[in-house]
């Protein structure tokens, strides 16, 4: 039996499972395609993420199963396990692999020019498995401890960049709303909110007072991360303007590298960004791998400890293989924005409403039982 976690821990875990790892690469894509209308894109994906998170919470609460996959087995025994689940696994592991590859490339391009990528990616994956291999309450405590610290560090770094904020008018979007760039950027940036069924897996293991709290907490986590996205977008745009921002591969790294503080011993305070983003990436991967592993394990009856280790090892190998196969950061960005990200959105929009309807039917047909 799994020890349940508190609603607050749940909120931090859901929060770190979205946005956190891909936070440094998207502004160029958004501004290049949508210009100053990018703000519509960010609002759209945040609202969509909140809606889909509510659907996922509803699914989990209706089924009352320990994991997402065991719920899938209940409502769709054959198609669910034979088709929807493998699709889910492939798409989301691929998304995490590309995000990890981009992260390694970002570190290499900006900070360690001579270091090969494999050791850096390996270190992140090993750390993630080390944290994600523990029990739910242990990982929840880690996230609950580190995530607020990360946010405070990010806030400090952003405070130092206040001096460089200059052009406020590009924040106001153009009066012409263009649908095509909007659709393209929504599809391309959805990966930020594609949490691999973290919400559906964790929701039944929280000590909820009322079911309504579950919806509110999950939506608050998504909304909070959406606000951080908006703030980062604003900092980039207000510092460089849309023309400058759309020409930089790693816009946020660039913006934070412009901070120079003379009074401190450490001159470029922006290097805090490495610490902030490496720890967020590790925690993001840890939460994803933990939920992924739990879901895979719930396919069988009595999972052995050895099997868990094998599943973690296999996931690590696949992630690292993806990072090594991708040749360059340009290729990784194209794969992420044009292929992987639309796929994650398609999976969610296609299957989640169906699963939710099925779970609703399951709940009403269930012999009267104490519901949450």
């Amino acid at each position, binding site marked *: 039996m799994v020890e349940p976690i508190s609603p607050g821990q749940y909120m931090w875990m859901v929060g770190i499972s979205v946005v956190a790892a891909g936070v440094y690469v998207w502004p160029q894509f958004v501004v290049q395609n949508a210009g100053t209308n990018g703000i519509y894109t960010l609002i759209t994906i945040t609202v969509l993420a909140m809606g889909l998170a509510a659907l996922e919470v509803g699914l989990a609460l209706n089924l009352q199963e320990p994991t997402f996959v065991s719920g899938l087995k209940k409502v769709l025994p054959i198609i669910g396990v034979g088709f929807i689940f493998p699709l889910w696994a492939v798409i989301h592991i691929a998304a995490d692999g590309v995000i990890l590859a981009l992260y390694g490339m970002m570190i290499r391009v900006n900070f*360690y020019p001579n270091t090969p990528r494999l050791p850096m990616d390996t270190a992140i994956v090993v750390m993630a498995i080390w944290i994600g291999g523990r029990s739910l309450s242990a990982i929840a405590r880690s996230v609950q401890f580190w995530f607020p610290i990360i946010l405070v560090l990010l806030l400090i770094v952003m405070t130092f960049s206040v001096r460089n904020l200059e052009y406020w008018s590009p924040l106001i979007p153009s*009066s012409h709303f263009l649908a095509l760039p909007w659709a393209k950027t929504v599809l391309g940036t959805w990966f930020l909110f594609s949490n691999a069924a973290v919400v559906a897996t964790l929701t039944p293991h929280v000590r909820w007072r009322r079911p309504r709290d579950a919806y509110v907490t999950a939506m608050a986590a998504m909304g909070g991360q959406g606000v951080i996205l908006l703030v980062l977008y604003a900092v980039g745009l207000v510092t460089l303007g849309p023309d400058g921002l759309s020409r930089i591969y790693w816009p946020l790294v660039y913006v934070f590298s412009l901070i120079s503080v003379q009074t401190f011993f450490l001159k470029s305070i922006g290097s805090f960004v490495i610490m902030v983003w490496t720890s967020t990436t590790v925690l993001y991967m840890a939460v994803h791998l933990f939920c992924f592993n739990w879901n895979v394990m719930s396919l069988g009856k009595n999972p052995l400890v050895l099997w868990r280790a094998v599943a973690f090892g296999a996931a690590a190998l696949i992630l690292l293989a993806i990072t090594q196969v991708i040749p360059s950061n340009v290729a990784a960005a194209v794969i992420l924005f044009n292929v992987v990200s639309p796929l994650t959105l398609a999976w969610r929009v296609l299957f989640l409403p169906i699963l939710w309807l099925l779970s609703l039917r399951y709940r009403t047909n269930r012999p009267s039982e104490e519901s949450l």
Partner: protein
Amino acid sequence: MTWKQWIVSGMLAVLLGLSLTGCWDDETVTQRATAFVLSIMPASDHEFRFTFYFPNPAQSISTNVNLPSSEPFAKTPVIAHSISQAIREAQRDLARDLFLGQLQDIIVSRDIPAQNIDRLVQEYNRDAYSSNTVFVVAEPTGPDPLPVTTQEPVPSVYYTQYFNCSTCQPAYLSRPVWKVWDAFVTPGVSPIIPYASPPTRIVRMLVYPVKGRPVLMTRDESRGWALMMNHVHKESYWFRKDGGATVIKRLRARAHVQLTYRAGHLIANVRIDAHGSLIEWPPDFLVTPQNVGLAQAITSKEIITECLKAVDFANRTRTDPFGWGRNYLFAHPDQGLQFASQRGMVWPITAHVTVITHLSTSGVSD
């Protein structure tokens, strides 16, 4: 912990230790040639003379660069057509790894045309390892007179000291390289950098048109530019009137600009609030409210003249050192659809400048 857990943790610790990154990039200080200043002077039509300046930290280490300890900086001059070629050429002359991460200033010759500076700045900015907060300053073409403030244990560069202190000078004129780059890639603004006339007086600005040689502002035009761009901290003014001098000190100005567009012109409504101290006045001048008002009116008029000179300069040279075209395009992105590819000045500027000066008298009255 059981013995199995000990073994697993031990193996993880070893693995993490082995994979600790950064070792590949580890170089000691003695293996690095840390350049502080890069100067770029024209050499021929398509080539430049790049000079890298390395500090000579202290006598004990000076053996590393084979330099007498009296010389604060070591120089490595090379001729090349791009920064990356210059780095390659300079690296051949150096026994250590040429490192640009601590670069503080880039000195460019005022004779290098705008399109070449554009190319060099783009190239510098494209490299993610180089520092983006480097100050850019222009100098006349010459044999690299690098102003140095000798200081123990590491000599420091005059320009770095000068620009790092944002409140030391009457007007803060520093331009970091990322702002210069941003101005080169953004429509509706002309890049502008401070110009150091020999020996090291930085009171004039150099403006880059889209193509061709950069144009130097006069002192008055530069001051007008600084006033309208909110860079003036403690300017002073001096008038000779009625057989005596009137001196205004510590004048601080705050400008508010409103931009409208009418019939092919960008109309800038500039309102400047200036606060200063009346320090000296002619002997027969009585400090009455009327007379202080008169001094305020003279100061306002002088400020207006300087601002209008700066705007005239922009219209005459077809540049926009204020970035007002950019600001207007940012606020009206739909206008930008037809002008987005046009760099430099997009529209000629008509400026209406209103100045309100407040003078206070302080210290001793007579």
